[in-house]
């Protein structure tokens, strides 16, 4: 597989550069939140500081409980990125295992696994997520598990297709001829060839997972107070769109910028890594 070395990063690829800046800023905000944030995100303000408009004291204003919006925004990055990455990694793990098993296993297993994939794909994802959330009490872990459980299907299909094409290569036949067990072939010779596909697919899915989490938190079905989430912040500003426009506006911008970052990163990585350079969106 001809993968261009990343060292030859095309200097005119503005999309990838923007993506790296945006995702790094988000990551820095999440990791360094206690240092960067101006004060405690949960500290209730005094009566006078409730729903204060953006000013030199509170750069992005305060919410109806007097909490600093900027501090909450920076802390909110933690939930979004944690849920985005962990749920996507879980989905990637499931999808890769299922896809490789279908691609390498006997025909019967392939059929069964693909039927299962089709079955899960026939629910609109958000309905499946809501069904699963509705039978348990909301928590951060639950959201990550549910998003992982509902996000693996398209990955399984991609991985299966790529596995089927890798399987035909001569070096795989050679590896088999040398007496490697099927598991060894899968692990040492198929999986490395799948990495570009997997990395691109993962990056392109982080944004979607972040958006779904924010919607669940907006509905009150996701992360619960006192954990700060951007979706929860938007929910708080929903009823005060005129008098407190800053409460709902800024978390939405933060979400959009983060998701744009990951979508651009995915597109940029695809241009560099994906041997097939498939066009069109890969989002789900």
């Amino acid at each position, binding site marked *: 597989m001809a993968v261009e070395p990343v060292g030859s990063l095309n200097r005119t690829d503005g999309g990838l550069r923007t993506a790296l800046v945006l995702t790094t800023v988000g990551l820095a905000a999440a990791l360094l939140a206690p240092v960067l944030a101006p004060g405690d995100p949960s500290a209730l303000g005094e009566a006078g500081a409730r729903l204060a408009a953006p000013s030199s004291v509170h750069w992005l204003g305060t919410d109806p409980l007097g909490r600093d919006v900027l501090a909450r925004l920076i802390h909110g990055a933690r939930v979004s990125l944690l849920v985005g990455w962990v749920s996507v990694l879980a989905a990637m793990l499931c999808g890769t295992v299922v896809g490789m098993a279908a691609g390498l296993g006997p025909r019967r297993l392939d059929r069964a696994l693909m039927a299962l994939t089709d079955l899960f794909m026939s629910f609109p994802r958000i309905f499946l997520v809501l069904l699963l959330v509705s039978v348990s009490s909301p928590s951060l872990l639950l959201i990550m598990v549910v998003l992982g459980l509902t996000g693996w299907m398209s990955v399984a299909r991609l991985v299966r297709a790529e596995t089927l094409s890798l399987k035909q290569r001569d070096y795989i036949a050679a590896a088999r001829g040398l007496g490697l067990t099927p598991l060894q072939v899968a692990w040492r010779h198929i999986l490395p060839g799948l990495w570009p596909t997997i990395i691109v697919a993962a990056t392109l899915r982080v944004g979607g997972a972040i958006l779904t989490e*924010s919607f669940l938190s907006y*509905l009150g079905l996701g992360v619960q107070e006192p954990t700060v989430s951007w979706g929860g912040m*938007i929910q708080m500003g929903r009823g005060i769109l005129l008098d407190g426009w800053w409460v709902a506006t800024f978390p*939405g911008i933060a979400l959009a910028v983060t998701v744009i970052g990951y979508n651009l990163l995915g597109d940029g990585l695809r241009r560099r890594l994906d041997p097939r350079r498939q066009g069109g*969106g890969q989002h789900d």
Partner: protein
Amino acid sequence: MLPWLARRLFQSLLLILVLATVVFAVVRLAPGDPLNRMVDDETGAADQALIRTRLGLEGSLVQQYGRWLRGVLQGDFGLSLRQQRPVADIVAEAVGPTLLLTASAYALHLLLAVTAALIMSTRPGRPADHWLQGVGLALYSVPGFWLGLMFIMLFSRYLGWLPAGGMASPDAPFMGPGARALDVLHHLVLPMATLALGAFMGTARYLRAALDDILAQDYILAARARGIPERRVLVHHALRNALLPLITLLGLSVPFLLGGALVVEVVFGWPGMGRVTIEAIWARDYPVIMATTVLTGAAVVLGSTLADLLYRWADPRLRLPDLGPAEGRSTGGR
């Protein structure tokens, strides 16, 4: 064609049955008695027994499943716990608004996508191309519920041009039929625009790639050489062929449309299936949750069956026996 259709329909029906089973299993096999998620300590024993009956919780799990599935097949989803009336009625009222919203949003999204694809494809690398791609990416990455709130903030609360939510004004019952239809359209503008704007770029990117391919073909060169005006070449020769695969996309867009509609319906209080689902989840109204989940799943299955059917109809090569469905058929944007 006919045996294929019969087999496909049978598969679809089977898939819907399995779907219904999965939904039942998720709700019933989740840890804890479903009853305990509905009642608190203050609910009396008589009420608990009543709710148990309403939920169809008597008898063994297998009996419950049989009873539920038989009901579903007859269009009977039981009684809503919150609204004390048949789930089928609640759902029936919600189907129309969702259809109106998704169909109009799909039409608008297609219009936007075709326009954007034509602009991008005829001006590759120029400012209009870059600009559209940027705007499209931004709209694609913005949370739909937040975009809806921003529209409400701007067009409803601030400018006062459009209603903030619902499907009809409070005085709608006293209007004539024409005025009432206009009133609904007035309420439709913001939800429709929110749904279409979040979606069109996926389709536009797909169409643009198709157009780029087609515009490089010899028959386009031949058409241009014959002196056919560029506009006619674009619309009659290129766009028509690029739009053909969209027939399939329509069927495959169902899950995305329903998912998007759910988000938009919640923000705008549009009385469709999505809103019904969310309200049922807040109230832990399981009969309603199960019904809407099964029905949306069924809509998706039927949509993809329809997509296959239309694809065969549109592409005669697939009608030959033993060719099977096209490999690598792209689903395009979301």
